[in-house]
């Protein structure tokens, strides 16, 4: 009995001379594609930011122009704004890709869908979470915070939006292709996002009051780590199911 050559045992995967791309390379490519697309359509990027600015504008008008009073509600106002703005941006996360068949091709790419979805979510965070975090200190100053609070506010929003983007990716994937999806998306995502709100608001509050904001920041970091490890798996499963 002769031992068959390895090439006989493993069926041809690809035409001769073709090599499969590595999953990391594929994910990197997916990230770059989303960034490039976003910069060709910058209007979509500005929308959530304008929304956030409007929400923070509501508070002085609704409560009082007195900075000492605004300082009290600033953490809540900033986080409510950030939460709603990132929720608004979530609808763009998968919608276009689902419509033009790109998401299907991701599922069929032979690469880890989890990695690709994670890459897409990273791009989304870079395009919405980071700009939001950069704008928040300015909004905080407008609501009566001092310059000393800027590092704390910035760190809290940067860490918090990581979790918001990842949790939101699950919700966005689940509500893909559904009618009236935006109300449902909020209903699914907001309860899960409450821990971010709690720790985030506390960190901002402490930063504005000049106290130590390390403890809530650590919780925010823990939440971010937890969601980085688990959320892409759930979002990938949800994408698969939603495309059926």
């Amino acid at each position, binding site marked *: 009995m002769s031992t068959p050559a390895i090439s*006989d045992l493993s*069926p041809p995967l*690809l035409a001769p001379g073709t*090599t499969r*791309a590595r999953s990391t390379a594929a994910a990197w490519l997916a990230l770059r594609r989303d960034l490039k697309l976003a910069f060709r*359509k910058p209007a979509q990027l500005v929308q959530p930011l304008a929304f956030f600015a409007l929400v923070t504008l509501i508070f002085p008008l609704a409560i009082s122009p007195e900075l000492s009073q605004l300082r009290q509600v600033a953490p809540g106002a900033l986080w409510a704004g950030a939460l709603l703005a990132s929720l608004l941006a979530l609808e763009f996360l998968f919608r276009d890709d689902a419509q033009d068949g790109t998401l*299907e*091709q991701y599922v069929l790419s*032979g690469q880890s869908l989890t990695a690709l979805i994670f890459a897409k979510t990273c791009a989304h965070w870079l395009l919405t979470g980071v700009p939001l975090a950069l704008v928040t200190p300015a909004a905080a100053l407008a609501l009566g915070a001092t310059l000393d609070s800027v590092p704390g506010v910035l760190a809290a929003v940067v860490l918090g939006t990581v979790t918001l983007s990842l949790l939101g990716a699950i919700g966005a994937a689940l509500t893909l292709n559904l009618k009236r999806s935006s109300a449902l998306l909020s209903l699914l995502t907001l309860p899960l996002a409450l821990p971010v709100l709690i720790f985030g608001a506390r960190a901002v509050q402490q930063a504005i009051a000049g106290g130590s904001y390390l403890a809530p920041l650590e919780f925010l970091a823990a939440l971010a780590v937890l969601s980085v490890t688990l959320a892409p798996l759930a979002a990938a499963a949800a994408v698969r199911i939603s495309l059926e």
Partner: protein
Amino acid sequence: MPTTQLEVENLHLWRAERHVLRAVSFRLAAGQCLKVTGVNGAGKTTLLRAVAGLAYAEEGTVRWCGQDVRRDLRTFHAAMIYLGHEPALKADLTARENLRYWIGTRNRFAESELDAALARTGANSIADRPVRTLSAGQRRRAALAGVILSGAPLWLLDEPATNLDTAGQALVGSLIAEHVGRGGLVMAVVHHELPGLVTATQLELAA
């Protein structure tokens, strides 16, 4: 020894209350082409999607080279390329950029191979224009270049000749014939006869 082939056995699929696929079975070996025909609503696209693993078939198995594809979907997906109704191209990118990203997530290729594939489908002249400026037929040609570039042995094509002129339809026929001649496998949903494609077996789905 496992041979390169696609075996579909007893596939059943329901959409809500509708029994769309009823015990569909077929075998497709290397160097063969399967034409899936049937009236509208017979489940042609659904069958293609079920084979690809995009639609969830409640019963039945799909085997690739003797292996149930559900056990290792990624290997199976790496070996197949699926072209659906939508050509999966981004309107804001050029055809060339689109292929770089789309096929680039699957496999590596040199720029010269990309040029060759575009030339083969007659899309080289429009390759650097944003896809939004292309006609439906031109988009289809660009997508077909992607299929060639993927190097996948198994092609799953959903009405590949839609929106194409007579020359384009002949092109699809000859691309499939060429691929099959090299030992590739093609499963295609077709409405019309594709010129140049005579050797295909046919699977007719009843409504």
